[in-house]
């Protein structure tokens, strides 16, 4: 039996398969709406989390299907936070430069859009890898209440 430390957040653990992306989106959708976000903002958060998890499946686990992805949602003050933890290959995002979109297309590159989307859609994206232990990406979005 597993002890649950965090009594104030919902968590979803799924295997590292793309077929679980829709479940992750439903989970995040529920949480974002529960935090009071409108549909438009919830949609942005959902897409950012999809991109983060797609990257984990593709790059961290290289399509190995039996890894785990833990998605944790919480509210800290007035910030909605999604933390995603995996145990795949470590990732140092500093080595990925944000693409200049026009330049990017001129070079006929495919891919490389996921990180750009995550950063554009969220207020903050932070990666933290402890090689051999875990990788964590933390996506944050301010909750702005309709005043």
């Amino acid at each position, binding site marked *: 039996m597993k002890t649950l430390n965090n009594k104030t957040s919902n968590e979803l653990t799924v295997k590292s398969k793309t077929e679980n992306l829709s479940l992750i*989106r439903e989970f995040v959708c529920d949480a974002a709406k529960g935090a009071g976000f409108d549909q438009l903002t919830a949609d942005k958060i959902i897409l950012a989390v999809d991109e983060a998890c797609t990257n984990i499946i593709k790059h961290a686990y290289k399509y190995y299907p039996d890894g785990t992805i833990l998605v944790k949602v919480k509210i800290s003050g007035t910030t909605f936070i999604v933390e995603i933890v995996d145990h795949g290959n470590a990732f140092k995002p500093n080595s990925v430069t944000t693409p200049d979109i026009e330049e990017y297309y001129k070079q006929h590159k*495919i891919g490389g859009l996921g990180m750009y989307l995550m950063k554009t859609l969220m207020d903050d994206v932070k990666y933290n890898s402890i090689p051999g232990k875990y990788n964590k990406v933390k996506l944050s979005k301010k909750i702005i209440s309709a005043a």
Partner: protein
Amino acid sequence: MSEFTTSTKQLDGVSVINLKGFLDAHTAQVLEAAFTSLINDGKFNIVVNFKDLAYISSAGLGVFMAYIENIRDNNGDIKLVEMNEKVFNIFDLLGFPLLYQIFNNEEDAIKKFNEAKQSENAE
């Protein structure tokens, strides 16, 4: 599991692919198969109808990027129609309107293909 399906019809010499459901890293291969099948048949004038598309992630956008060059090299094009606001916003964020022509409906996109054909014939 996401549900995503495509259906393809022929209209005035143009192939129209209808997208339905959720297009993500899991379902992108369904769209790849639809493009591959058209290209194998030598059909390069393609309209993609987004009316019934509920969701797209960068994995879905990547499919368009993967095929566009080959299609244009063959004097064809991919034109996009009936995109809802949510999906358009994502396309817009990624600068796709610079790369793809977007029309309100199938008729306008098909007309554009056939105008292009006529001006070629006139040359």
